[in-house]
């Protein structure tokens, strides 16, 4: 079954969606959408590093994403608003990464595959990494769920309950980096943030509790992955953008639904 490239693509897409969606809920609740974007852009630098040093990409991407996270928290509050810091760092990292990839590696590297994903070329090994990463992120999210929610609601409230919000935030950053690392192959650097934010946003009007939102987002993400792949196959469209478009279509539907119900 795994011999079929479409089956592998579908499995990879669903795997990434299942990990990205619950994490994406925290990204939405904590207003970290741009932070997700910056982490994803930093990943290009990681890719360049990995290619230059001829080491595996995954740890390098994680490293670049973590470096980005600490740069963001280090610069925020020093006279710059968070969105300015993110705007500067995200685009600088992307630009630098693109130059590095172009200069450091031979020209056979397909830059487009990193920017927009190459889900139809997912190998068995890629699939193993994707699902390994996705399950790790999902596990972390479920394990730290209550503490993460507390830290998201109010850091002081969390501390009064013996939870260290900074530790939880670090866990969230790690999980984000991991999702970025495994999602590059599926949707590419430029559209990863969409996979985090859109399913969560689409789920919001349907639910009354945080858990319901995470589950609904995961389902919407998985459906988007499958629908996007189908659309890509049917209309010969690029797969990564098709997945994001499917998610966006679901967002439009649930938002309209909410408007009709008068909420």
């Amino acid at each position, binding site marked *: 079954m795994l011999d079929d490239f479409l089956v592998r693509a579908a499995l990879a897409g669903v795997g990434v969606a299942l990990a990205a969606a619950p994490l994406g809920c925290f990204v*939405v*609740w*904590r*207003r970290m959408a741009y932070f997700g974007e910056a982490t994803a852009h930093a990943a290009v630098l990681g890719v360049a590093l990995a290619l230059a040093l001829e080491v595996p990409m995954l740890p390098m991407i994680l490293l670049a994403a973590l470096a980005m996270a600490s740069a963001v928290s280090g610069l925020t509050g020093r006279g710059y608003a968070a969105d300015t810091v993110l705007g500067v760092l995200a685009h600088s990292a992307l630009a630098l990464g693109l130059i590095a990839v172009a200069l450091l590696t031979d020209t056979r590297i397909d830059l487009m595959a990193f920017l927009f994903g190459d889900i139809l070329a997912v190998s068995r090994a890629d699939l193993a990494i994707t699902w390994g990463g996705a399950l790790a992120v999902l596990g972390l999210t479920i394990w730290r769920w*209550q*503490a993460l*929610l*507390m830290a*998201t*609601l*109010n*850091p*002081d*409230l*969390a*501390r*009064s*309950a013996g*939870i260290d919000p900074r530790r939880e935030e670090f866990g969230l950053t790690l999980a984000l980096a991991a999702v970025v690392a495994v999602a590059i192959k599926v949707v590419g650097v430029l559209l990863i943030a969409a996979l985090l934010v859109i399913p*969560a*946003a689409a789920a*919001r009007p349907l*639910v*009354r*509790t*945080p858990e*319901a*939102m995470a589950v609904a987002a995961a389902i919407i993400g998985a459906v988007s992955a499958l629908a996007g792949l189908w659309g890509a196959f049917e209309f010969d469209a690029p797969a990564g953008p098709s997945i994001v478009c499917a998610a966006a279509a679901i967002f439009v539907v649930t938002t309209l639904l909410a408007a009709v119900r008068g909420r």
Partner: protein
Amino acid sequence: MSAPLIAARGLGIRLDGREILTDVDFEIRPGEIVTVVGPNGSGKSTLLKALIGAVKPSAGRVERAEGLRLGYVPQKLAIDASLPMTVGRFLSLPRRVSAEAIAAALDKAGVPDLANRQMKDLSGGQFQRVLLARALMDRPQTLLLDEPTQGLDQPGSAAFYRRIEEVRSEMGCAVLMVSHDLHVVMAASDRVLCINGHVCCEGTPEIVAGAPEYRALFGSGTKGALALYRHEHSHDHDHSHPHHHHHEADA
């Protein structure tokens, strides 16, 4: 006298290079209601945060009784509109609790039947009481409230403070709160701690209201809560003292 539940010993706090609190000595014992008063920016909220462990002391230390259960009501709790949250679910943080425990806590806080409402749909008074209910979930030995009646009208805050007193007598917990409602504070507290970067004065409401340090901060009320209350709303021609009415939020 029983051992203190929480104590600050020579506590000093620096935040961003600014001295917020210096040399604060303070204790709270079981069953006491202690109120912290002081001008804006005097370090009231910071003191509470230091006591719950959210802010690290730069000098001195905070001592807590072994295994102390804390209930904390923060000054501000803004729940992002993107975060769906029923009252019942909110009370199930950080530990999951049964529906009966949720109903009991809401009842104790004086707002039964709210469990299925969304947090964002609550009125200001309901919201504060839900925060109180959450703080009561763990059967705390000490309840710390940071301006719990902010944004409530006078009857609303009076009712809230009555609730606190009832909770204290039902549960026997100590209560430490920051407040701007001076007249209510004077009526409802066993002890008042007046701070302005340091402890200005401390004692029963009567003693504090008569202390020159307190008068220097809050004006020249003659004696006790009633005088203070009148003072806030009537004439006072003695303007030689700094004169504040503190109704806005403390940064």
